[in-house]
């Protein structure tokens, strides 16, 4: 069992949905990413998704596209992401999921990546463009080293696919909240609760909801029926705005994450 499993168990006892935060490694800089992770943890984030920037982020809206471009300009690579993770692990035991598009993993070598990621202290991997049908060649390696390969479900997923993904997933299931790319949205889809219930019919894994979550109200609503609230673009926008403004960045992150974290407690 990974730190992800333990974390969900611990939070359940405390009556809180997990707050999962996405950041792109290398944005605004290689050094700052590590500090941001520590700040996120202190402010109440429970799980970190460490994004591997990719040249062609097909499932991302403008905010994460630009973040990926900045990170790539800073020389970020998959190897570099693992270096950052090793630095994080010197000080923190927060669960970390490496999050990205398939080609950098494929290019690195799937077996080698699984082993190196485990050694660096990763707990899971989520590959946006790797549905279960194509995932076997990677999953044999992640399973072997005990990394959770997390899969996505979407509002468009049929019952058949909900069953398939539920059977193959590890760690938790990431339910995409909207039919669309990543990015903040004013309104959430209320049929999500129904999908979460259907997923739970097939698996005991926790279910997290992401894409478009940016406010405490949204977080609170999700925390009422899901096990994790996932925030990406809204956090990236803070990093975009305050990335080079020193301490202000950490103050802004702290305020934002604190609020969301509070909203993740049941009946808060």
């Amino acid at each position, binding site marked *: 069992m990974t730190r992800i499993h333990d974390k969900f168990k611990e939070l359940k006892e405390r009556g809180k949905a997990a707050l999962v935060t996405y950041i792109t490694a290398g944005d605004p800089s290689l050094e700052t990413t590590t500090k941001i992770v520590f700040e996120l943890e202190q402010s109440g984030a429970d799980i970190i998704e460490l994004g591997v920037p*990719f*040249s*062609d*982020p*097909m*499932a*991302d*809206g403008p905010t994460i*596209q630009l973040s990926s471009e900045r990170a*790539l300009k800073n020389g970020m*690579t*998959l*190897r570099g992401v693992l270096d950052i993770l090793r630095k994080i692990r010197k000080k923190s035991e927060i669960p970390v999921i490496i999050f990205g*598009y*398939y*080609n*950098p*993993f*494929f*290019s*690195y070598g799937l077996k080698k990546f699984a082993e190196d990621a485990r050694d660096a202290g990763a707990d899971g991997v989520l590959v*946006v*463009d*790797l*549905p279960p*049908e*194509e995932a076997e060649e990677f999953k044999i390696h992640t399973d072997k080293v005990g990394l959770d390969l997390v*899969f*996505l*479900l*979407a*509002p*468009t*997923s*049929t019952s058949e*696919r909900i069953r398939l*993904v539920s059977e193959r997933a590890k760690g938790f299931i990431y339910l*995409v909240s909207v*039919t*669309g*790319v990543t990015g903040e949205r004013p309104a959430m889809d209320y049929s999500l609760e129904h999908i979460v219930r259907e997923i739970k019919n097939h698996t005991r894994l926790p279910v997290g909801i992401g894409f478009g979550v940016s406010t405490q109200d949204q977080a609170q609503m999700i925390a009422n029926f899901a096990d994790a609230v996932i925030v990406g673009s809204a956090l990236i926008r803070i990093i975009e705005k305050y990335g080079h403004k020193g301490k202000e960045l950490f103050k802004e992150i702290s305020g934002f994450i604190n609020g969301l974290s509070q909203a993740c407690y049941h009946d808060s």
Partner: protein
Amino acid sequence: MKTRLKLPDELGHFGVYGGRYVSETLMPALLDLERAYSEIKVDAKFKEEVNYYLREYAGRPTPLYFAERMTKELGGAKIYLKREDLAHTGAHKINNTIGQALLASRMGKRRIIAETGAGQHGVATATVAALLKMECEIFMGLEDTRRQALNVVRMKLLGAKVREVSSGTQTLKDAMNEAMRDWITNVRTTFYIIGSVAGPHPYPTMVRDFQAVIGEEAKRQIIEKEGRLPDLLIACVGGGSNAMGLFYPFLKDEKIRMIGVEAGGSGLETGEHAASISVGKPGVLHGSKTYLLQNEDGQVKGTHSIAPGLDYPGVGPEHSYLKDSGRVLYTTVTDKEALSGFKFLSQKEGIIPALESAHAISYATHMATTIPKDSIIIICLSGRGDKDIQVVANALGMQI
């Protein structure tokens, strides 16, 4: 390795290539599309409908033209041109857009999107959208809207909305990223007409099947004219749809050699090219595993070609398979050589080819004298060159 002909497998794999590497949001749509496509594939009425538009609207069959002067000038093998430039809208792209738009209609989708590089696929999509009264949006890299301005105007005149894509390298790959993002967002109402034998399954197969009309006609025509099959087929390869269309019906005739010509750009040694198969290594982009131009960290590289339709870092997965199996030989031609091919065909045959097709012409001019004189070559002349006049004039220092 023996070339297997009954491909892809049921998950869309051509050997180790192809497949479906997309985010979950699109998976149900691709499965729907696969189902719908396998139904119409065996539906005689649908076939008849496609054939009707190909014949009455697109002007098929296109001629297989004996390029007598070109043949004499080179003094080698006998050269035939498959005149896709004479199809409606001026390129082979219409073969595929008619098929996919009719399928979209059947599936009840009224909004169509497409990516385009040279603008030929965009024009062919906007054309069928007008014909079938569908809403149409075309994604095109900003850089390409500049160098193919004529096609932008054509698409707008046809009633399509042209969305300029300013992210990344501002060329075909980024147009495709943006089209994918639109599709992820509007997947319930929208049909994405991919223009090449690329993308996630079933696109590479479906586009190949719609383009195979090129090779089927050529086969019939060459037997009529020469009483036998050709010895060599040559076509340019960007994503590779015109090449796949010509090659596919001939694949099982092992004696027929096939050559795919990629964009050598400023020369392979400069790094500025789009020779995915010749220089790249296997990777995953835009939904399929295939040869890909990428750096050592798996980031996709920017490409360069004077021909925007070839300016793409990937290639259709079936081409990757045909390269590994050795069935098709892939080579490159530089911008400069393509320009010579462009001038050569214009002056010797009175046919102005698209810069993409000029790559195939240029390679054929070298090849014709290296094989026995009684050999027969068929070149796919995939499109006409009107769209390229500005670029060619600039390259040759001519004033417009």
